[in-house]
């Protein structure tokens, strides 16, 4: 299995080498296609892992159920890393940094309930102390 992926990557890099010199745009298109194909290949296994994680987190029912938020944040981080690295490879450092910032903001937006719960616990804790 891993050999198949390794072979595909090596072939893709060979394609990049050929196209990088005079046709940089095709190299980028090829890169996008390779990363997309690789992720499509890996995602079913990732889905199984996520289902396992959700089942485990359902059984261990602590009072805060943040597993959905965790999975959503993982998805955002995955896509953010994908596009950010593609931008970096294409040489667009500024765009990559801005996109990373946008992804971080979105992740924080999704994590607002977690912060609310944390704030609730802390304030309750402080009230008990005083």
């Amino acid at each position: 299995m891993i050999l198949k992926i390794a072979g595909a990557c090596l072939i893709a890099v060979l394609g990049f080498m050929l196209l990088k010199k005079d046709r940089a745009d095709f190299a980028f298109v090829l890169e996008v296609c390779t990363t997309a194909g690789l992720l499509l290949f890996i995602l079913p296994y990732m889905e199984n892992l996520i289902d396992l994680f959700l089942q485990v987190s359902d059984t261990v029912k602590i009072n805060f159920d943040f597993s959905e938020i965790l999975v959503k944040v993982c998805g955002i981080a995955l896509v953010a890393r994908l596009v950010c690295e593609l931008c970096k490879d294409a040489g667009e450092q500024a765009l990559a940094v801005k996109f990373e910032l946008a992804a971080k903001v979105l992740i924080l937006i999704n994590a607002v309930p977690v912060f609310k719960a944390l704030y609730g616990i802390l304030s309750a804790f402080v009230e008990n102390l005083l």
Partner: protein
Amino acid sequence: MEIDVIFKIAAVGIIVAVLNQILSRSGRDEYTMITTIAGLIIALMMILPYVSTLFSYIRSVFDL
């Protein structure tokens, strides 16, 4: 599954590169830009389904 797409796009790229060399040698430089754009569009059309399936799959897996 994605090996043949890689080959196809690499082939399109190389063909466009060779075509541009030929065109520039034969003096018709204005056509090189057209062939480059045409080749790029073909390559993009080839990978479009892959990228869209990838994003819809990520959306379904992580229920974004």
